[in-house]
């Protein structure tokens, strides 16, 4: 009796310490979750805060005197004269209307760097199209020079003003006040391909490239993956070959993605002689990469169809293939679709293998087919993130936001499909 009493005493005395340990353990768990969620929050706020300015463009609206004397141009229909003419001059003239004292050579140079380098092309294109405008004055909207644009978007941050002279900063502030320099939604970003100049670069080329690549991936990976899953679940005899296939699928699911890039480089480009940096090769590589994901999730979907369905079909005389195609397959379809969408989302965000097959090239044109040089969203982000100019960083994060928007939509679609269509048995 005394013995057990002292034992109980022992336990009671240790209780406080044990509960403290319990609380500490629970605290560790909460801390761990907090760290993970905190990183998620930091990641997203960082990207949004860096990137929201990517959706804004800075424009300069000027009354441009299309004066022939200024441009050394007498006849705008003459291609020789067009080639020789100075289309920067009227823009400088228009700016001088606001700053009449800026007449020296260096002042003019600084004025010419207020608008982007495509501004003079804009004037030329206008005159080429409508030669009779020569001698009139037109209101034209130009994209601001990148240095100006960055300065306007990050007003007050000295890190972003280093590329402007003090005079240019003063001019910019004044033009801002007068409403000549203005900011608006960046439609350029969504309507153009890449460019050497951040304010002129867009994501459309990469978006179309991604779309084409994903098209190839879907057309190959979905049917092949589903057929493979059907074979493995329904028809495969249990023998060595089947085991070998299963081992291979499991291992391929964990092979680093860059290895698939080596495969694409050596086989699709090296052996089959397909061209570099085209969506077809990218799509093939990504299809091979996503196959294991699709196979594994499709098998799970097939497995979840209850045996009673199969037995009922077999009972009224359906062949094995009829059971599968007429009954099991349609019932497993939502699950297969869900898995495939998730696999496609992975493929959409994949970068490394595409670098090896040359999709990292600088491509200005929006791709127009499966065999034209293209890049994809994540690679475009990679290219921009590695560019030295300040303006590209905001484009990279804006691109990330676009990419994440696509991924979130795809995942939401997958979840919706699962909730909506998947039957619980």
């Amino acid at each position, binding site marked *: 009796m005394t013995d057990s009493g002292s034992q109980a005493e022992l*336990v009671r005395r240790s209780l406080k310490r*044990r509960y403290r340990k*319990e609380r*500490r353990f*629970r605290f*560790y*768990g*909460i801390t*761990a*979750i907090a760290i*993970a*969620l905190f*990183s*998620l929050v930091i990641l997203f706020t*960082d*990207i949004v805060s*860096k990137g929201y300015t990517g959706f804004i463009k800075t424009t300069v609206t000027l009354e441009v005197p299309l004066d022939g004397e200024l441009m050394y141009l007498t006849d705008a229909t003459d291609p020789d004269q067009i080639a020789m003419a100075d289309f920067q001059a009227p823009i400088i003239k228009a700016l001088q209307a606001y700053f009449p004292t800026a007449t020296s050579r260096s002042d003019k140079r600084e004025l010419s760097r207020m608008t982007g380098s495509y501004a003079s092309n804009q004037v030329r294109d206008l005159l080429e199209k409508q030669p009779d405008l020569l001698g009139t004055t037109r209101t034209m909207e130009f994209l601001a020079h990148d240095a100006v644009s960055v300065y306007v978007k990050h007003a007050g941050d000295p890190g972003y003003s280093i590329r402007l002279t003090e005079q240019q900063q003063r001019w910019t502030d004044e033009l801002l006040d007068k409403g000549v320099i203005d900011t608006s939604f960046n439609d350029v970003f969504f309507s153009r391909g890449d460019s050497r100049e951040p304010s002129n670069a867009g994501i459309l080329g990469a978006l179309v490239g991604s779309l084409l690549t994903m098209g190839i991936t879907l057309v190959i990976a979905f049917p092949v993956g589903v*057929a*493979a899953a059907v*074979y493995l679940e329904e*028809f495969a005899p249990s023998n060595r070959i089947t085991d070998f*296939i299963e081992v*291979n699928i*499991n*291992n*391929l699911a*964990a*092979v*680093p*993605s*860059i290895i698939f890039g*080596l*495969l694409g*480089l*050596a*086989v699709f480009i090296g*052996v*089959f*002689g*397909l061209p570099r940096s085209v969506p077809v090769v990218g799509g093939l590589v990504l299809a091979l990469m996503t*196959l*294991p994901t699709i196979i594994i999730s499709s098998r799970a979907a097939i497995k979840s169809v209850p045996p009673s369905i199969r037995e009922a079909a077999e009972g009224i005389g359906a*062949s094995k*293939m009829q059971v599968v195609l007429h009954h099991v397959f349609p019932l497993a379809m939502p699950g297969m679709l869900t898995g495939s969408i998730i696999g496609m989302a992975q493929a*959409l*965000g*994949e*970068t*490394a293998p595409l670098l*090896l097959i040359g999709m*990292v090239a600088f491509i200005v044109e929006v791709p127009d*087919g*499966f065999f034209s040089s293209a890049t994809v969203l*994540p*690679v475009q*982000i*990679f290219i921009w*993130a590695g560019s030295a100019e300040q303006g590209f960083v905001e484009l990279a994060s804006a691109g*990330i936001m676009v990419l*994440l928007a696509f991924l979130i939509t795809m995942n939401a679609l997958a979840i919706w499909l699962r909730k909506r269509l998947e039957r619980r048995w």
Partner: protein
Amino acid sequence: MQTTDLLPLVLVLAAVAYGFAYMRSRAVAGPLGGIRNLKALPVYYAARAALWCAIPALIILGVWAAFEGKVIQDMVMASLPAELAPQSEGHASLTLSQISNVAAGKLDSARVPDGITGAATLLQELREKSSQFKTLLVILIAVLGGAFAWTRVAPHINARKSVERTLQRVFFLCAAVAILTTIGIVFSVIFETFRFFGKVPISEFLFGTSWSPQTALRADQVGSDGAFGVIPLFTGTLMISAIALSIAVPVGLLSAVYLSEYASRPVRAVVKPLLEMLAGVPTVVYGFFAALTVAPFIRDLAVAIGLEASSQSALAAGLVMGIMIIPFVSSLSDDVINAVPRTLRDGSLAMGATQSETMKNVIFPAALPGIMGGILLAASRAIGETMIVVMAAGLAANLTANPLDSVTTVTVQIVTLLTGDQEFDSAKTLAAFALGMMLFIVTLLLNVIALKVVRKYREQYD
């Protein structure tokens, strides 16, 4: 016609064959007293006709498209006059691109030697011929196949069986793609690796301590064009992976424990998908985060406390990679913890142990093999991760133990060696394949061991 146009054409032909065979089977069945008297339903006759039409044509088309470019290239190169015949592979690719540019009209033919212009015309001719011949052949075979199946629509033939057999074979081939992919991976790295070891001795590669594939510093240097010692890459990879795992394992494991043992249902329902969001973020986004936010932050912090730090540090890449792997570890350990039988847990709680004591002394030891398997899988993922290290870890192959230094990894080197100028026979390019082979072998071993451990553990409690 181009391959991309022929593909839909074949499918249209198959649909036509389907329609014809369907009508014929009904026509055949009519006088016999309905489709009851056929050996198979009309759809099967129709499906068989479509398969006969499409499959042989698609095979021919695929083979043709796969080898067309290469064969034409070789024929054009062989046609070049002797003085233009390329000396090296690099030269060959240059000549080839010149020829194709002339053929495409991008390069003025007046500015290249006559031989090139001739070759360009030949290239154009061969392309046209090949395209015509391909179109004819594919359409012919499709029509013949369809017609053959059409003649075989007869009441005594069981079309269902042959259709089902064919489908099953197609399904098998689809499953066999997994094997083909593995074989493709092995073969694509193995040849180049052997050629590489013909140039650089294997011992030099495995045990050399300096890696500088780009520069030829001295003529008497190993391989005479750079050093290919892989040790600095290994230490770099290991350091970054170790940093990543030392973040991801405790955080992932503890959050899994909390979520499965303590968290209430609503908390779990919110936190789990949020954690999984971390896994869905593309690696290039993590790379961007590491390179432009974490790395400068770490450098400033290190400088503030008086340490020297480079702008690209192993620590930044490792930290961010750790964040990326957290959901991987947590979902694997969640599975493993939930697989421990309820009875063990109940027994321990009934003895008066607290939840944390149960966790630490009963569940955790029972789940340890599974958790180890999960950690191995996470390690293989960290070793093979590319974008974060490409963007944040740097290129300098430093043999260092200082996490604030810039290091490089196997994957970074593969990317840098293969994205620059390309000559397929230089030791530099071949080295990338040798590195790829090492990466493949190491990750494969880790995966095989991990899967074995996890499976064994599952069987133990099933």
